[in-house]
């Protein structure tokens, strides 16, 4: 495969340009599991100068879903007459006493779907079963979820509801910048989140914290262009929003999608696994849609106290350590028996390092692959 976004010569040129541009070290964080995987897969971090450190932020919505919500989904799956639908990634994320996969093994009803609209189709086909869509995702996924519930209401479907775990990216960036240990000089913003949301939310962050933010795509060339746009600004003391991914990102986002998101959801504080409560970082159904909220529709139990864990995922999700620094990485914690969510999800940082950096891992390089 050779195209301009994977062209080894162009990759080398961009990496060299970043090196020539740098007069000191910088730390740039990406907040997108897809970008984390691409960086590790293609060895982008090994092509650039060692003084440019790439920090993997909390870019995997599955990984930051609170244990309490996983427990609620498991409880719902084991409730007679209820079927929980969600994305495949969610099945193996550990709750306090098991995951959705084990709930299914105990007789719970769990179905993997590709789209919330597929869950809606299940609800139409099974009118006597309560279908709960466990809605997880960043802003990229919120339009699909909003559409499913808007259509359920329009169709008068009484057996469809949502367990909402949607989170918003900009408040998480703000929380990371507010943390006393924050050492992030610039951000690569997740391209597809920006396809939906546009860039408006980032300018105030650039101004207030004096960090450049570059909306970036997912190929080696995209990522290096994003890093170069960040480094260029850092070296001259600028802090602005730049759109590297203009082919899929309009600065105003997708207006129709934004309008429906605002009709269906309201912003609320949300707890992120590993980061704690973050102000205005979650989406919840508005009062007009309360009848479609599974937490209202079903009497759910009180969350259980959490068991102690050897998992370092909180430190990984905050970007404090690389996954390989964890003593359990690749030993007690592997994709088939994970201690924490980042080893489970296809986009978790631990899974990326396990897949591409563990002994015997898949080899792929941006310059000779």
């Amino acid at each position, binding site marked *: *495969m*050779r*195209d*301009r*976004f994977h062209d080894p010569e162009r990759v080398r040129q*961009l990496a060299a*340009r970043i090196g020539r541009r740098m007069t000191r070290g910088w730390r740039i964080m990406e907040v*997108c*599991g*897809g*970008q984390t*995987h*691409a960086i590790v897969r293609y060895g982008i971090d090994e092509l650039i100068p060692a003084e440019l450190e790439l920090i993997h932020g909390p870019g*995997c*919505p*599955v990984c930051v879903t609170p244990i309490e919500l996983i427990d609620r989904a498991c409880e719902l799956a084991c409730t007679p007459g209820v079927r929980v639908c969600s*994305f495949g*990634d969610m099945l193996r994320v550990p709750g306090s006493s098991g995951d959705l996969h084990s709930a299914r093994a105990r007789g719970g009803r769990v179905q993997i779907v*590709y*789209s*919330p*609209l*597929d869950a809606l189709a299940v609800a139409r086909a099974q009118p006597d079963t309560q279908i709960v869509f466990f809605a*997880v*995702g*960043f802003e*990229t*996924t919120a*339009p*699909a979820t909003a*559409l499913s519930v*808007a*259509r359920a209401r*329009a169709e008068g479907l009484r057996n469809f509801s949502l367990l909402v775990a949607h989170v918003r990216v900009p408040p998480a960036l703000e929380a990371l910048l507010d943390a006393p240990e924050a050492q992030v000089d610039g951000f690569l913003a*997740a391209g*597809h*989140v920006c*396809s*939906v949301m546009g860039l408006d939310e980032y300018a105030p962050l650039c101004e207030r914290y004096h960090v450049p933010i570059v909306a970036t*795509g*997912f*190929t*080696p060339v*995209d990522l290096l*262009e994003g890093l*170069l*746009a960040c480094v260029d600004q850092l070296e001259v003391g600028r802090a602005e929003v730049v759109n*590297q991914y*203009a*082919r*899929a*990102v*309009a600065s105003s986002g*997708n207006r*129709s*999608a934004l309008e*429906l998101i605002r009709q269906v959801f309201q912003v609320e504080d949300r707890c992120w696994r590993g980061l704690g409560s973050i102000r205005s970082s979650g989406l919840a159904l508005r009062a007009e849609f309360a009848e479609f909220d599974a937490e209202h529709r079903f009497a759910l139990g009180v969350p259980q106290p959490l068991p102690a864990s050897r998992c370092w995922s909180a430190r990984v999700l905050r970007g404090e350590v690389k996954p390989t620094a964890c003593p359990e990485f690749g030993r007690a914690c592997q994709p088939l028996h994970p201690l924490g969510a980042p080893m489970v*999800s*296809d*986009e978790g940082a631990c899974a990326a390092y396990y897949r591409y950096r563990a002994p015997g891992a898949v080899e792929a390089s941006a310059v000779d692959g």
Partner: protein
Amino acid sequence: MCLAVPGRIEEFASDSGASPLEREGVIDFGGVRRRVSLAFVPEAVPGDYVLVHAGVAIQRLSPDSAAQTWQLLEAEVEGDSAPHEDSTKSGTVDDA
């Protein structure tokens, strides 16, 4: 999670409802066809390329990048067994 894949609108689904939220089409993803919601790309018509996430088109790709999108998608399908985000590439970014 935020994986989004480009595809070309083949046709509007004939049994779509009348409301804008029910607007759907058949999308060709390099040979694989799937029904996708077009609720959020009201201006898109058959022949256009859209970026699809979780069964929903979230953005229309600019027309001048369409041909490159298609080539890249075909390259991905032929040359790379792993479905990664790089299959979403189209291409209008200027040289940095």
